[in-house]
């Protein structure tokens, strides 16, 4: 199925040009390797060799301290089962939501899509605190439950179950975004064929649609899983009280000592888990061969009419959204308006002073501007670079590109603080090149390292969905490789690049754990400032700043929705014209 067509291609090209092409790809690979080496390998190397040193001598002591301690395996086991269950729940929520929004005639689709990605806009620091505020021992839900039933509620947020739930409702947008994207650009001729042969809509879903979007589900699940294993805030706030430890909370202990080499050695354990999972996911993805998911024919999605069930489905969806999305946002807004955290909800306890205070701080204002520069810059660079790597890897099948892809994915499994430290080690007193530390550039470098995986994941899975037959058709009609890329591959890849761009933008916009170690005066970010406010005890100001960022994220999402629609319309128009 994945036979290469290049032999035919070779024949039709003069040998001189052929050599030029081969060189062209090799030059591209060389440049990309250089980029990855500087932005990822060099900083990683800076932390890792230090984890192999004890008192100035080579030693495996840090590793034996990590690998020989039973409590670390307990933490590893906890990390694994909690993340697996949380990912399962996230996949369930994300996939169901994507199907309902994309494939049924449920109304308010635009609004629903926006609400469904909203959890991404809440700073990670607040998702756990917000849930404590809602479902903790003195939280709002708990109080309501007591008033209604006169008994303590059946849940306990400070438990593994609480961690799983909060991780799932924080991470399901990964699945929603990737699956909704895949459904939107999927060729539905197979579904149509089944329908005309009299197959029912549920069986079509199960036997045709679901297998076709499986790569997208797996891709989203992978991101959700890795986000779960490297999440620190949620298990720290919810797990410690139940004496429930995971790897990241153990790593944080090593960081407080501070024993960076030990923390690095422990992070290696985390990276190993991530790599094993990555390979397992690739296996699952790879065995499917190549589906003609995007084959260039016009797209008319198969829409299920809900009929009488429509209001019920809509009500269920909204209820879920209110509980898992709007209530945490509400808790955040409430915190930003209350005089102090935990104050009674009486009129004289409401105030705007946190907003005024925070906007009067020049650092916070600079933080907003810097994040507005850094997030799109990082997103753009990553998406371009990762599209090139994915192209070399998936389409040009250039040797070495797969390895590059793998290396660039590793930092995603590293705790942010390890990346932060690696940035200082690499760029505060560098052996070559400029001193980035103390400038905005080091933040950009940190974000590129941290979020490369997002770009690679979304461009890779999109390219895999594009069948080779399209490019082959272009070549056989005499188009050059460059022209093929420009006219065929790039337009089809664009939605995937856009999805990756949005994912990176939103994550980088609120980024905290890397930034907090490498920011300096003049190079503040929103995430840092939210954290500093929170850490200084100004929970209200921190919440106010977080609320101020919500519209940015929402506007961005609406903008991309609009772009996608524009693109679809353009494609329709082009498909409508006979020889365009």
């Amino acid at each position: 199925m994945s036979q290469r067509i290049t032999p035919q291609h070779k024949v039709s090209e003069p040998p001189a040009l052929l050599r030029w092409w081969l060189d062209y790809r090799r030059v591209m690979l060389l440049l990309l390797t250089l980029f990855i080496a500087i932005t990822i390998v060099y900083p990683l190397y800076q932390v890792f060799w230090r984890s192999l040193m004890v008192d100035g001598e080579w030693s495996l002591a840090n590793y034996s301290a990590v690998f020989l301690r039973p409590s670390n395996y307990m933490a590893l086991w906890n990390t694994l089962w909690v993340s697996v269950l949380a990912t399962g729940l996230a996949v369930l929520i994300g996939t169901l939501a994507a199907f309902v929004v994309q494939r049924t005639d449920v109304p308010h689709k635009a609004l629903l899509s926006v609400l469904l990605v909203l959890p991404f806009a809440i700073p990670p620091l607040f998702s756990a605190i917000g849930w404590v505020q809602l479902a903790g021992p003195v939280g709002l839900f708990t109080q309501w439950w007591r008033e209604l039933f006169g008994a303590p509620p059946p849940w306990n947020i400070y438990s593994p179950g609480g961690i799983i739930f909060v991780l799932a409702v924080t991470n399901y947008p990964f699945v929603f975004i990737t699956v909704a994207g895949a459904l939107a650009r999927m060729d539905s001729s197979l579904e149509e064929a089944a329908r005309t042969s009299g197959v029912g809509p549920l069986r079509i879903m199960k036997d045709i649609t679901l297998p076709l979007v499986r790569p997208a589900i797996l891709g989203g699940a992978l991101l959700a899983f890795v986000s779960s294993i490297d999440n620190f805030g949620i298990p720290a706030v919810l797990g410690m009280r139940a004496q429930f430890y995971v790897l990241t909370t153990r790593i944080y202990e090593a960081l407080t000592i501070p024993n960076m080499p030990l923390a690095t050695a422990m992070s290696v354990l985390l990276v190993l888990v991530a790599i094993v999972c990555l390979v397992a996911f690739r296996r699952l993805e790879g065995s499917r061969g190549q589906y003609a998911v995007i084959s260039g024919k016009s797209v008319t999605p198969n829409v299920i009419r809900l009929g009488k069930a429509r209001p019920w489905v809509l009500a269920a969806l909204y209820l879920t959204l209110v509980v898992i999305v709007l209530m945490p946002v509400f808790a955040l807004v409430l915190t930003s308006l209350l005089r102090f955290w935990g104050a009674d909800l009486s009129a004289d306890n409401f105030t705007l002073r946190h907003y005024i205070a925070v906007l009067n701080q020049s650092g916070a204002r600079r933080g907003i501007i810097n994040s507005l520069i850094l997030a799109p810059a990082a997103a753009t660079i990553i998406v371009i670079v990762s599209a090139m790597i994915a192209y070399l890897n998936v389409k040009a099948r250039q040797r070495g590109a797969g390895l590059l892809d793998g290396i660039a994915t590793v930092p995603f499994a590293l705790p942010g603080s390890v990346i932060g430290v690696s940035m200082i080690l690499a760029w505060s007193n560098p052996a070559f090149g400029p001193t980035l530390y103390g400038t905005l550039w080091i933040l950009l470098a940190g974000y590129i390292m941290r979020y490369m995986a997002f770009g690679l994941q979304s461009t890779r899975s999109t390219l895999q969905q594009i069948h080779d037959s399209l490019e082959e058709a272009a070549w056989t009609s005499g188009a050059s490789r460059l022209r093929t890329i420009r006219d065929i591959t790039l337009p089809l890849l664009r939605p995937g690049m856009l999805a990756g761009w949005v994912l990176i933008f939103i994550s980088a916009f609120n980024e905290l754990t890397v930034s907090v170690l490498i920011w300096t005066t003049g190079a503040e970010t929103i995430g840092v400032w939210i954290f500093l406010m929170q850490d200084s005890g100004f929970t209200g100001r921190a919440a106010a700043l977080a609320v101020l960022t919500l519209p940015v994220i929402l506007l961005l999402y609406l903008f991309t929705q609009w772009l996608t629609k524009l693109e679809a319309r353009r494609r329709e128009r082009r498909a409508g014209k006979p020889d365009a």
Partner: protein
Amino acid sequence: MKTLTLLAAATALSAGMTSAAWAEPSGTVTFYSSMQLDVVEPIIEAFEERHPEIEIDLLYSGSVELEQRIFSEIEAGRLRADVIWAANPALFLNLKEQGWLAAHDSEHKHAIPEDLRDEDDMFFAGRVHHMGIGYNTNMVSEDEVPRTWEAFLEWGPQAASASPLHSGTNFNMLGAFTQNDELGFEWYERAREAGMQVVRGTGDVTRGVVSGEFAVIKGIDYIMAGQAAEGAPVAFSFPEDGVLALPSPLAVTAESENDAAARVFLDFILSEEGQQVLVDKFFMPVRTDVEPPTGLPSGDAINALEIDYDWMAENGDELRERFSELY
């Protein structure tokens, strides 16, 4: 070095007077601090008003993140900070030992008790904070306020502490308790039996006691006072069998690029004017000639637990290990 110090002291005294222009310290001082912003910012403001030619570039950070940053910078071979002010004395002992601090013969040193400064003038306490008992005034009536750490445990699961594994102040508290014959590490074992909750950081215990999730906590004096000033139903008490009095050291770094200005700034924080700013923010002053904040007992009326930082440095790992096995 010595002349430089004298020069700095002289210019600090004659600020405003026109001394030789070339000798006037000026430029930017990079200042690393883990002191809360509402404490540091007024000090910087007051300083810059006094010394308009010197600009303070503040890098505020939580104590854990600040230490990580400092150690990473040292590892990379260059410390950016000119002046450091952080909450953990062990950090400064460590920096001193590695030669990253500069001695400073401050004009203010005689106003500061000996146990609040380094014997080699390498660092001085810039403030002192106490860990005692914080409580929710809606849940704990006046006569129920625990007077001892034993009485604290009677609150069972409504009592809470931040984890010594994640909070520096609590780590020192663990050390002070362990070194104390009466309390000992056994206090934590009894706490475990009594059901005391251990949560992550200082922020978590504070939020818990403010919202009424906890009745009593191991709290920090100025945080409780600050929350109370905001209107939260909390108060602080000094238990009779001892509180932790933790100095937050302040130092000039050895490789400072603006040494003279850094010293002027350090002296300002130790001056009566600088200390008064702290007192206004509910901190105990380090100077004997500045009155403590209203409502707080004076320094010598507080029963502070003894703590040996060298012992802490030596036995820290073991202590952490022991605690993590318990909780």
